[in-house]
């Protein structure tokens, strides 16, 4: 564990340096993510803007919610993006071989090797959107709630990582689980809507079936209504612990089944 911690900054530095050698690429990646998020925000504006107002959710409040959902997703994207590769083709093409030959935890090696600039772009977009719209929403920023919302964002990252690890590791059984992971992952987009006001069925799915409502929507709802955001932090931490544990369990079972390719 100590060895991994010592190695981690070196891995990140290596990845940052190699991606900076293609400067246009890094800039293009950041721009594409910013544009993508702008389009998604416009989508929400058009759908929710078609009706007068949805409970407490004015457009400004929804923009704050939108900005917040980007933050945990962005941090996960920066550090753990290679789980997509595991899901789509690493098992099928036998790309895990090099990591199994070194005396370091293979999962650590696999994840540490990539640092994604695009995620940093997403993070900046999320924070900027929150900073623009939060002052227009009459949010009372108590010290306790401010810390709690940051804690929620960090815990949210672990929930994302847990979900990705869990569904990407299914690839050890089905060879390519990218489509499954993509379907589950994209459910997070529905947490950008006023979940509680979207009818019983929608709300139950987002709170109990896929927990995206719990750790993305709920903290912002509490923040805007002036509730205690630590309740959301509690739920987020439960979701994070459960999903990371499940993810690690499936990964460990899966890597034992891993068979390389070729001769």
């Amino acid at each position, binding site marked *: 564990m100590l060895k991994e911690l010592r190695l981690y900054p070196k891995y990140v530095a290596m990845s940052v340096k190699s991606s900076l050698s*293609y400067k*246009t*690429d*890094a800039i*293009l*990646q950041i*721009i*594409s*993510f910013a*544009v*993508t998020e702008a*389009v998604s925000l*416009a*989508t929400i504006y*058009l*759908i*929710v*803007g*078609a*009706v*007068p107002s*949805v409970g407490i959710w004015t457009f400004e409040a929804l923009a704050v919610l939108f900005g917040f959902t980007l933050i945990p997703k962005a941090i996960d994207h920066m550090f753990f993006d290679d789980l997509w590769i595991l899901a789509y083709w690493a098992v099928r093409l036998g790309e895990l071989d090099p990591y199994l030959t070194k005396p370091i935890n293979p999962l650590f090696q696999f994840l540490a090797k990539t640092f994604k600039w*695009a995620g940093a772009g997403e993070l900046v977009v999320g924070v900027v959107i929150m900073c623009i719209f939060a002052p227009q929403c009459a949010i009372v920023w108590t010290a306790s709630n401010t810390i709690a919302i940051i804690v929620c964002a960090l815990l949210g990252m672990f929930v994302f990582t847990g979900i990705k690890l869990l569904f990407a590791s299914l690839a050890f059984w089905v060879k390519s689980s990218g*489509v*499954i992971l*993509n*379907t589950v992952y*994209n*459910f997070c987009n*529905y947490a950008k*809507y006023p979940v509680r*006001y*979207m*009818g019983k*069925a*929608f709300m139950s*799915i987002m709170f109990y079936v896929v927990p995206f409502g719990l750790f993305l929507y709920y903290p912002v709802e509490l923040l805007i209504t002036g509730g205690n955001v630590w309740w959301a932090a509690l739920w987020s931490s439960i979701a994070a612990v459960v999903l990371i544990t499940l993810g690690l369990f499936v990964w460990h079972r899966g890597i034992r089944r891993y068979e390389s390719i070729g001769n």
Partner: protein
Amino acid sequence: MKAFRKLKIYSAFTKANFLLAFAYRGSVFLWLLGGLLTAVMSGLLWWAVFSFGGSDAIGGFSYPQMLLYTVLSAVCAEVIYCGTADEIARDVRNGMIGMRLSKPISYQGMQAASAVGNFSGKLVIVGIPMMTIGTLVAVFGFGLDGIQWYNVLLFIPTLFLGMMLNNALGFMFGQIAFKTQAMWGVLSMTDLFISFLSGAVVPLSLFPSWAQNILAYTPFPSVMSLPVRLFLGMNSWEQTLIGLCSSVFWIVVLNVLGALWYKRSVRHVVVFGG
């Protein structure tokens, strides 16, 4: 005679890609499952929006129309997705572009012929079954009316033109691959951009009127909004006719622009090895 031989050469790409769609019939099931979940969620979402609006129609759509619009645009997006830009990006990245250039056929023509095959294959394997199910559910489950047989028949060629437009746009955006390695981000951005502006994400009639006016002069509405609205019987004959003419016009213009840009970008090609 010469034209006929040419057609025969390119039709080989069409046939190959038509058959390729069937090779992935196993993954159709997974795609179906994902599509079904998404349809349920958007159905619930729109239901809530309609109940908050308090009126029967939003942007000229009744609830069953909106439901079928959402399903059809998702299915059509899959059917007309031809991956032209991805193909170019892959060819440039792994050096296949060199092989392609050495053959006495047009790269652009080859891409278009492949797109036609891909379209027909997906239409048969995904499009027609799912659109039939979606329409039956909307008509008998939610009381949708206004579907006419002649509109449904006209829908297929209109969607074909939409696919050709998508292919032409893809060929143009694919040229970016000659300049950068970061194609994954660029492509996901351009895909989303095209689908948003063509009304695949939110119907164009919900856009502010200034945006609708501008979009009317672009190729985007013909990619998705035109065929799906036609299917639902929401277009007048006049609108359909103008839309079809504008599709043809843009297919020609975009392909010419693409050809010019391609001519410039092949000058930059660097391929390792021999």
